[in-house]
């Protein structure tokens, strides 16, 4: 059984700078994996490589056994890789409802002609999308914000809406880019529960980039550590906490948190 996502010696260079070098990483079905490292270590670049925003200079990436190099981001999204962004990228001019339904492109069997003819297929399809969006919004208690413009949501809700939108694409793998950024301790606690819940409820794998060690150590089953684009360690939270390389590069000598 091959892994859900597999990175094999993936390298990307920008000019002379190697942003990610020879990265090997595996994510299995239904696994919650963390990716940590100091600022500029290449975590977001790794995300962009996995989602097809960047093409690797060398190395191979495969998702569900198929190579993804050369595949466009929207195709990877339809194939089952979804993501959130470090700096929230919601569709600002749209309502909460529209943000989520826009992400249901793979799941709507309709196109231009249906939209123009407004026949029975169209109405049935739109009703189904409406129903599914509301189901999702209810799960995350965002349903009362249905007609609110996404940009006027409170910050924490915007972060959650981004996760909901990502889930609306029906992913197999969800990439979360610093979901806890800017959250207070209570919100972080709720976020951890939310991520666990999402993983179990939707039966998906999650790759989490996060700076907050409480969050990462608290929920990840396995952690990869990047430094200067290279993977310096991989293991369970306990192994990572005890790894001298990780302590030197990232956690710091005094790390006894979490």
């Amino acid at each position: 059984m091959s892994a859900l996502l597999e990175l094999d010696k993936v390298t990307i260079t920008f000019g002379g700078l190697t942003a990610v070098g020879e990265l090997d990483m595996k994510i299995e079905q239904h696994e919650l994996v963390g990716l940590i490292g100091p600022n500029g270590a290449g975590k977001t670049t790794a995300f962009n490589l996995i989602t097809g925003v960047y093409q690797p200079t060398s190395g191979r990436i495969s998702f569900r056994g198929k190579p993804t190099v050369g595949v466009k981001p929207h195709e990877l999204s339809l194939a089952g890789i979804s993501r959130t962004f470090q700096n929230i990228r919601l569709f600002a001019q749209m309502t909460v409802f529209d943000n989520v339904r826009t992400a249901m492109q793979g799941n709507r069997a309709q196109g231009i002609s249906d939209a123009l003819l407004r026949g029975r297929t169209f109405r049935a399809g739109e009703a189904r999308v409406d129903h599914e969006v509301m189901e999702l919004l209810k799960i995350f208690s965002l349903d009362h914000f249905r007609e609110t413009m996404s940009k006027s949501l409170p910050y924490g809700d915007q972060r959650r809406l981004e996760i909901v939108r990502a889930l609306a694409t029906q992913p197999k793998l969800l990439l979360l880019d610093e979901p806890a950024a800017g959250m207070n301790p209570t919100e972080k606690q709720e976020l951890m529960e939310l991520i666990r819940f999402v993983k179990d409820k939707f039966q998906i794998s999650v790759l989490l980039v996060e700076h907050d060690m409480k969050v990462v150590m608290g929920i990840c089953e396995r952690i990869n550590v990047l430094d200067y684009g290279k993977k310096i360690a991989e293991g369970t939270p306990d192994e990572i906490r005890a790894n001298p390389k990780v302590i030197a590069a990232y956690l710091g000598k005094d790390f006894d948190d979490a």
Partner: protein
Amino acid sequence: MRGREKLFLLLGIIAAIGLSFASGAFNRYYLGIVIDVGINIILAVSLNLINGHTGQFSLGHAGFMAVGGYVAAKLTLVCGASAWIFLPALLLGGGVAALAGLAVGVPSLRLRGDYLAIVTLGFGEIIRVIFQTSEFFGAATGLTGITRLTTFGWAWGLAAVTVYVVACLVNSTYGRGFIAVHDDEIAASAMGINPVRYKVTAFVIGAFFAGIAGGLYAHHKGVLTPSGFDFIKSIEIVVMVILGGMGRTVGVILAAVILTILPELLRGVAEYRMIIYSLLIIGLMLTRPQGLFTFGKK
């Protein structure tokens, strides 16, 4: 809600055709302006799909309008003018304009913002110059003696169709993709939306209706000259879209109405007309940069 959009379309077309029968009673000058308004609604609403909803700043709309106008006019000039040939002529003009939109859109939509604006501006001018040098299309004199087939019913009926198409397209799960591309292309593609596909689609549909408007314009004025489709014409349409509020269909329609009538009202002060017109636009942009008619939800 059921089938409401189609009902509106039907009512719009019936009203346009019905009023068309009564249009003989109107003063010809006023009737001419009202038809102009209908044509400009088609232009502004179709450009709004590209510039407003999809957020791709195009300055080539007059070029596509020229394509549709010349093709349709040439057809009725060659085949003889009758009401039966008019619709096929308009559709052919729109179709060729859509092809031109495809040809322009595919290479240039990789560009963004200002660069796209410059490239579409260039393409629009190229199209105009092609007509200007082509003997077949009458070169610099253009085409004359086009039968005036455009009635109130045609102009406003097709305006209703344009509004219907753009509104129905955008107000669907499929169509939210246009706005998603406008709001955030990277996020859109991460959500399974192919930005290039949506942009090209918007461009082709927009160009199609610009072509239809061109055909109506040709058979309204009776003459076509290449200089009528210079970039000033494109700018005029862009101003309607901006003034109406990018992506707001109702606002854009109102802006098209006002900006068509305004220059006529200012005819009394002929020498200062363009100055007043320009000042009004500057004033509006300073006070309401989001567009004049942006109330509530779009």
